[in-house]
């Protein structure tokens, strides 16, 4: 299944026939999906900005109460995970499957670290009585971060699948579609956080 590219005009020709032509990494289907995801987050961010403009003081005050250190740690964890995923893709390209699997395992470790930090942050928030109904800011803080959190979980499931595939030596030069597809999704999860973190935790 990994080999099949969707037959749309934008789909790239196989690497063997046009090695120098620009090529879409991963399956076109995942890019359609990623664009849909970015649109969903984009609409959510716009709604946040719109509401914030109407409640500036409230948003600033409650933003100050967020745990920014946890946010920074999580940013580092996700960026590191993305770096590891890049190394895993490069290793797979060289047919170094064992190495690729190890890089993926390291990325999964970082992702799990993100999940742990986030859960600690949520439990502290709930102890302080923060809920979806406690204020407009809290509604956005919880909704946006939780929606992203679910994407991290899905991203981890995909990374585990890639890790499993890499251990079996499934990816190599000329058969990178599965690996690149999964990696593209993970980078999307990272990218969204890079906008979400400053927007919700920092900018005031």
């Amino acid at each position: 299944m990994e080999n099949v590219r969707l037959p749309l005009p934008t789909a790239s020709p196989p690497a063997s026939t046009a090695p120098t032509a620009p090529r879409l990494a991963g399956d076109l289907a995942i890019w359609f999906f990623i664009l849909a995801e970015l649109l969903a987050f984009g609409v959510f961010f716009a709604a946040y900005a719109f509401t914030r403009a109407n409640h500036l003081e409230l948003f600033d005050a409650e933003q100050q109460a967020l745990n920014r250190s946890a946010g920074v740690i999580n940013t580092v964890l996700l960026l590191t995970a993305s770096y590891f995923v890049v190394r895993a893709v490069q290793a797979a390209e060289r047919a170094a499957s064992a190495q690729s699997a190890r890089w993926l395992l390291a990325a999964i470790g970082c992702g799990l670290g993100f999940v742990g930090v986030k859960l600690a942050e949520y439990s502290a928030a709930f102890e302080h009585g923060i809920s979806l109904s406690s204020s407009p800011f809290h509604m956005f803080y919880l909704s946006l971060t939780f929606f992203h959190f679910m994407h991290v979980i899905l991203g981890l499931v995909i990374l585990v699948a890639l890790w499993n595939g890499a251990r079996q030596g499934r990816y190599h030069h000329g058969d990178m579609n599965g690996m690149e597809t999964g990696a593209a999704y993970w980078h999307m999860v990272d990218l969204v956080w890079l906008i979400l973190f400053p927007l919700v935790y920092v900018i005031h």
Partner: protein
Amino acid sequence: MQYKSQAVAKPYFIAAIGLFVGQILFGLIMGLQYVVGDFLFPEIPFNIARMVHTNLLIVWLLFGFMGAAYYMIPEETETELFSPKLALALFWIFLIAGALTIVGYLALPYATLAKLTGNDLLETMGREFLEQPLITKVGIVIVALGFLFNITMTMLKGRKTSISLVLLVGLWGLAIFFLFSFYNPHNLVKDKFYWWWVVHLWVEGVWELILGALLAFVLIKVTGVDREVIEKWLYVIITLALVTGIIGTGHHYYWIGTPQYWQWWGSIFSALEPLPFFAMTVFAFNMVNRRRREHPNKAAVLWALGTGVMAFLGAGVWGFLHTLAPVNYYTHGSQITAAHGHMAFYGAYVMVVLTIISYAMPILRGRAANPEKAQVLEMWSFWLMTIAMVFITLFLTAAGILQVWLQRVSDTPMSFMATQDQISLFFWMREWAGVVFLVGLVIYLLSFFVKGDSRAANA
């Protein structure tokens, strides 16, 4: 027909079409009652006509889905149906129970029907679309369980494909969410909250899986495009449909007493509900453009393409029109909702069932495709019904905009009934469009009886 047991789909399809005719006749009756209030009163009051119109729609679509599953599953799993006898027995049980329920609606006062059918044992009646007596609801559950048992057992012993898996998950979801029709809390907020778990999570949730699977199946058959390609699109479409559709339930939670965050969740996620329908249209046209064979059944291809376009317009665009909370504040429960409901049900579910019937029925009757003349007639019916539905939707939208303006936005708002008088012109035009729809439906029926040279029997 590759497998003998696929033949059980035939009575299901015939019953579906028969009930479809009933649905349209009652639609015309109530459409007239909008402008001639005492038409057929007291024999068929408006509330009864409406109940019959909507209930028949649901039941005939269920017949269509079941027929589709009985036709598709043997071919997908490459094995005969687990029990064709069970499938036929359930057909008669469902048909007789359905007919008795409609007779009950028409012959008895609703309260008497409730008393006679044990509604005091467990109060489930009286809610829009879920008006069925308790025994009918129990009957639906028994038929659904028997049907799912049959389909699941067939799948377990045969080849497992993504299309059949998606179809099965959709059908199981359909049965599971129907169970919420038995939960009728006294708290009105909770009542509405869970009522939508049947109504919304059916049509904007699990039914979309069924729709996707049916469309994917027919597209594989008529285009010859690789299964892998079609299945990958199917996965993208159903993931988008589920993510947007499930959280999108929130667009029904704006004004019923649920927490305020539903206005955001509902607005944002349901605003994205057109995406999977858009993807479906792109998908259908792409697959047909890249077809590797010229299937003799042109009518089925037309229905498949029509499903993509009309589902996107009806469910996607007309849904988006009034899904954002600030808009819905004004449009809630107006004729705009009726406009959306008509085109969405027709575009998504009616058309996909007619697609599979169009593809499968000739094969069930021993030929790959119908004679040329029959297909031309069927395509005429496609255009007549579809264009009539576009006009029904446009007239209802116009009625809705005027209604919202006169009744809710204006500085001197009019009462509901006074507003209805003002928009009666649009109701008349809608009724005439409905007559054209009926003409299309009659032509559709005639297309089954046209004789001529039919193509080879191996599809």
